């Protein structure tokens, strides 16, 4: 049963082949038996899951089931869940139990999903390996000596290990696409503003966007259809109607113009990874697509711009964790300053502290123009690169990551080496464009991802393109377990 995709679960539940309760019990047992190998969950919500499954079975029996009724999922532990600890994988929020649900949780609950638990992640979503979690690193189900990527490593690993068919995730610089690539899963970061950020712990507000990770494009389409909405509680939410992202999956891709940026195939890209990506591009040619050489000349400035903007926004966002209203408070503070200093010094891990300090530097008097303002200008240049490309092409394709997964510990001592992991994904966030990663092959039995970047609000077409590729290839069906 754990091998079922979301589409198969929807059909099976409606065809009365099995009940949501049976499926939920099966997956909970599997998590209990196997997750000690992967550490992909921080919290398992057994009681809630069984209650939701029972309610779903009743609605299915009554013939009034919403779209995802009885489908088990997991939420990244950055997404606020009412009455369930939401830790952000940080000591700071180890004791935080939100009094409300994030909008995406409300949306998925309304669609009938069953919540199996909260998935592990890099602390406050800052990382590309899932090693910065207060609850320990997540291991890649393809080889537990390797990282699953980050920051949504728990969501990706849980899907890859067949513990859950789909999960929510967030992506600020690649945190959905990079772990999807390294675990052979399919993940989509929507257009900035397409999915509400309300109730999702903020890292860098102008870049953060939530999206799904699942085992194929069709399942991602089901989840995104439920997640995406206009939300008056998120002032950056786009005022667009809800959409059915499954509607166009079967459209033809004949005549599709695929942009291939030369900057994504240069120095730094692993040779075997390049071959897998080139093979995928040839497959699209066979499907009737046309490959077009393009250039995104400011690509190499994406990481420097990101590491000004994201830490600057993080330093402001994370100032709310003050040891006063919720979260960690130090013992015996001598005065208010001591309370702030030690609560934050003890509550935040190394990488989070580093980014807050970098952001504080970039925003401090005398440096604002040289760093923050400059980075925001470069951001516009990066967006203009994409806009010029989209005058000639429909989508852009390339590698999601420079190489397959690396070993645990390989980059943890060198933050800058870790940052370069996101070289192909970060520009998409800076421009606010939708991006996804789909499986396109293996190198030494470790997965490789193909990145598809679309124009604003073109998620339905991207999912169509990914789905058509997955009709003629089997890479997404390759299993870690």
């Amino acid at each position, binding site marked *: 049963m754990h091998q079922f995709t979301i589409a198969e679960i929807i059909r099976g539940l409606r065809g009365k082949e099995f009940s949501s309760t049976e499926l939920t019990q099966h997956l909970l047992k599997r998590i209990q038996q196997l997750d000690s190998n992967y550490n992909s969950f921080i919290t398992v919500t057994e009681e809630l899951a069984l209650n939701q499954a029972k309610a779903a079975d009743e609605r299915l029996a009554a013939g009034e089931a919403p779209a995802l009724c009885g489908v088990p999922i997991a939420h990244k532990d950055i997404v606020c869940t009412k009455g369930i600890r939401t830790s952000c994988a940080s000591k700071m929020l180890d004791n*935080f139990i939100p*009094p409300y649900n994030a909008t995406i949780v409300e949306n998925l609950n309304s669609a009938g999903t069953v919540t199996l638990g909260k998935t592990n992640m890099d602390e406050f979503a800052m990382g590309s390996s899932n090693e910065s979690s207060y609850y320990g690193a997540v291991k890649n189900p393809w080889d537990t000596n390797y990282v699953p990527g980050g920051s949504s490593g728990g969501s990706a690993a849980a899907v890859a290990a067949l513990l859950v068919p789909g999960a929510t995730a967030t992506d600020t610089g690649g945190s959905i696409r990079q772990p999807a690539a390294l675990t052979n899963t399919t993940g989509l970061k929507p257009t*900035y*503003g397409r999915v509400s950020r309300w109730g999702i712990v903020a890292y860098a507000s*102008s870049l953060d966007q939530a999206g799904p990770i699942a085992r194929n494009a069709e399942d991602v389409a089901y989840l995104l259809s439920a997640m995406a909405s206009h939300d*008056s509680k998120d*002032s*950056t939410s786009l005022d667009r109607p809800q959409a059915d992202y499954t509607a166009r999956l079967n459209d033809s891709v004949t005549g599709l113009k695929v942009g291939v940026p030369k900057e994504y195939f240069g120095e730094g890209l692993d040779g075997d990874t390049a071959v897998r990506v080139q093979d995928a591009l040839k497959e699209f040619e066979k499907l009737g697509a046309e490959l077009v050489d393009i250039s995104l000349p*400011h690509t*190499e400035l994406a990481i*420097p*711009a990101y*590491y*000004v903007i994201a830490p600057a926004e993080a*330093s402001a966002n994370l*100032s709310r964790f003050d*040891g*006063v*209203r*919720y*979260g960690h*408070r130090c013992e015996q*503070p*001598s*005065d*208010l*300053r*001591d*309370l*702030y*200093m030690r609560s*934050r*010094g*003890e509550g935040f891990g190394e990488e989070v*502290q580093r980014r*807050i*300090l*970098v952001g*504080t*530097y*970039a925003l*401090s008097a005398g440096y604002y123009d040289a*760093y923050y303002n*400059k980075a*925001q*200008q*470069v*951001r*516009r*240049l990066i*967006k203009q690169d994409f806009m010029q490309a989209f005058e000639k092409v429909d989508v852009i394709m390339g590698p999601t990551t420079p190489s397959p997964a690396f070993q645990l510990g390989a980059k943890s001592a*060198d*933050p*800058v080496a870790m*940052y370069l992991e996101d070289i192909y994904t970060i520009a998409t966030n*800076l*421009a*606010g*464009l939708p991006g996804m990663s789909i499986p396109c092959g293996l190198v030494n039995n470790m997965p490789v991802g193909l990145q598809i970047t679309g124009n*604003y609000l073109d998620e339905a077409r991207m999912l169509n393109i990914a789905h058509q590729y997955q009709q003629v290839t089997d890479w997404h069906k390759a299993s870690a377990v």
Partner: protein
Amino acid sequence: MAVDTQTVEKLAELARIAISNATIEEVSSRLGDILQLVDQLQAINTDGVIPMAHPLDEVQTLRADAVTETDQRNSFLSLAPQSDEGLYLVPKVID
């Protein structure tokens, strides 16, 4: 760009993060690496480029001026490390 420990101490004070003397050298060195990375931005000419704040240049939407939030004081206060009679408690600020 090198970052000296004095600068780190100043940043830590501004950010209200206690950093131990044992780790300050390490923190300085890592911050230096990151600032060296972001200093690549200085090489590019951005004269006349308007800084980009929102990817889609959208403006904030307005809502009707009506009360929509309910009083949840007690549920929020229950999360606080220390509270009393509807107030958050902190160490004495004014003598």
